[in-house]
């Protein structure tokens, strides 16, 4: 029963925000999108252990894909969603296996380079809007139950759809984490060589995680394009998208389902509702990141756990299993 408590709280929270002013709705929607990108990243970075600093590329693929499909081809939100996400997945399947040849820090640097290339291309190419970007994306009409004039401009409709997407993306993450695939990914994160020696095609799993991250980030991108109705290179640069997602995952607690939600509330939603200045916001960002990484390496989610359990330290059962496997392998290897 307690399992469903956080989900109920999330839905209730989103519902309460949904009654707010258009200004509040826009803030809540953009915060939800930032959290969605972080949840996407949490698949490859949290579960898979590949620190991907280029998730903005796929967020951007979704947004630019949707913007072009809608303004040039007249695609609806639903059709754009299918096609733009498919594009992002295909791109990730092409670049993923190449970039994933590199490890740890080098993977982080190469994804960062990919982000640089993406922003440079969309900013330099006039067919992609250049520095000015692509305006004029048309939102879908209001949902039927709002009635004829219940939701002018469809902002509330967009907000509701984004909430549904957020819950869905979070559910996908939770499902992967609970599934055998998620556990294998975590095992690969802890000891890739061991998993290889146990017969797992680890590259395949890492590409899978990379692609899921790309696809989910693209979902957020499509909704970004339709709620903001305008895309330009800025929001998809390293610092504003990829880095933000990285910080949210790190602060929330890598591989934790509720980590990005907690960190997103503290880092994104909180400061925008409190209307911090851009400068204060950056201090909060940097300061919270440093403090959490230094003093609470498991992130906010681990902190909440520790509070709930009265301070008892726990070793993950996964780590213990791995240690045992490793020990067995070593003694076997040495005997033979």
């Amino acid at each position: 029963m307690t399992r469903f408590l956080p989900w109920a709280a999330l839905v209730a929270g989103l519902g309460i925000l949904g009654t707010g002013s258009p200004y509040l709705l826009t803030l809540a929607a953009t915060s939800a999108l930032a959290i969605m990108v972080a949840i996407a990243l949490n698949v490859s970075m949290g579960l898979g252990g590949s620190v991907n600093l280029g998730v903005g590329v796929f967020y951007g693929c979704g947004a630019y894909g949707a913007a072009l499909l809608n303004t040039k081809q007249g695609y609806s939100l639903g059709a754009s969603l299918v096609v733009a996400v498919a594009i992002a997945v295909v791109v990730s399947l092409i670049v993923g296996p190449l970039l994933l040849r590199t490890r740890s820090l080098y993977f982080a640097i190469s994804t960062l380079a990919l982000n640089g290339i993406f922003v440079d291309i969309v900013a330099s190419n006039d067919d992609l809007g250049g520095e000015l970007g692509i305006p004029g994306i048309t939102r879908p009409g209001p949902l039927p139950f709002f009635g004829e004039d219940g939701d002018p401009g469809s902002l509330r409709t967009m907000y509701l759809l984004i909430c549904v997407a957020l819950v869905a993306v979070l559910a996908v993450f939770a499902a992967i984490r609970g599934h055998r695939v998620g556990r294998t990914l975590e095992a690969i994160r802890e000891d890739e060589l061991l998993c290889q020696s146990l017969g797992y095609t680890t590259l395949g799993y890492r590409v899978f995680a990379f692609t899921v991250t790309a696809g989910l980030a693209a979902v957020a991108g499509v909704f970004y394009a339709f709620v903001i109705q305008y895309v330009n290179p800025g929001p998809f640069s390293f610092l504003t998208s990829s880095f933000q997602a990285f910080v949210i995952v790190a602060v929330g607690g890598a591989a934790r389902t509720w980590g990005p939600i907690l960190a997103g509330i503290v880092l994104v939603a909180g400061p925008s509702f409190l209307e911090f200045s851009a400068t204060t916001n950056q201090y909060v960002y940097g300061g919270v990141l440093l403090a959490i990484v230094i003093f609470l390496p498991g992130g906010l989610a681990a902190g909440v756990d520790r509070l709930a359990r009265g301070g008892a330290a726990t070793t993950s059962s996964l780590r213990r299993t791995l240690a045992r496997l490793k020990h067995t392998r070593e003694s076997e290897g040495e005997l033979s």
Partner: protein
Amino acid sequence: MSESLLTVESLVAGYHGSRVIDDVSFSVGPGEGLGVVGANGAGKSTLLRTISGLVAPASGRILLEGRDITRLSPDRIARAGVLHVPEGRRVFSGLTVHENLRTGTIAGAARAGSSADPYDAVLDLFPRLRERLNQQAQTMSGGEQQMLAIARALMGRPSVLLVDEPAMGLAPVVVKRVAEHLRTIREHWGVALVVAEQSANNVDGIVGGHQLLVDGRLREVDSGGSDRANLLAAYRAAGADVPTTARSGRALTDGKNE
């Protein structure tokens, strides 16, 4: 036994709460040696790594010339005169033989009152290295790398030398040569030597006597060899290689303690 250089008192150590080393005590004096013989996983490396500060002990004390070094960092322990030749040799790749030797001088230079630069004396002991001073360390053969690893530690003018599996992966003839060097270092340089090995006959040529490490505890080996059958059983129980010479009935009396 003369005055003790290195004393280990009821040492307990392990990882994540497990006890790999369980209540180990011994002491070695200048020019003396101790062979620690045990199977894989018996805790030989953990014992040496705990003495040199890489593993934090759960309890117990380590004394060097009466001074407590239990909680010092590994680099401090090395500068105090306990040098560790790690398992697998681990010469610095990308550095030449000469540069590898120079890294060793850092430990010795830190100690006041140390005698002259051991560079020439070390190279006299290992003339092979003198021929290869400008070679990249990682391009040398396993035996040469082992010599370099020992020579590198000697450059730090150790009073205690810990050597982890010096015979690992080496041809028998090379093992013999390494053993001769180590014996020279103990007998003529007066260094206290602790050698970990899987096989007792690898250490018997180097140190006077040895002890078995079983389940994290040191067991005395009666070097008199009065009850050979029991001893062989103890080896087998410990999973150690049965010393080949033991079968001929010589080995265990050969390395009689001085």
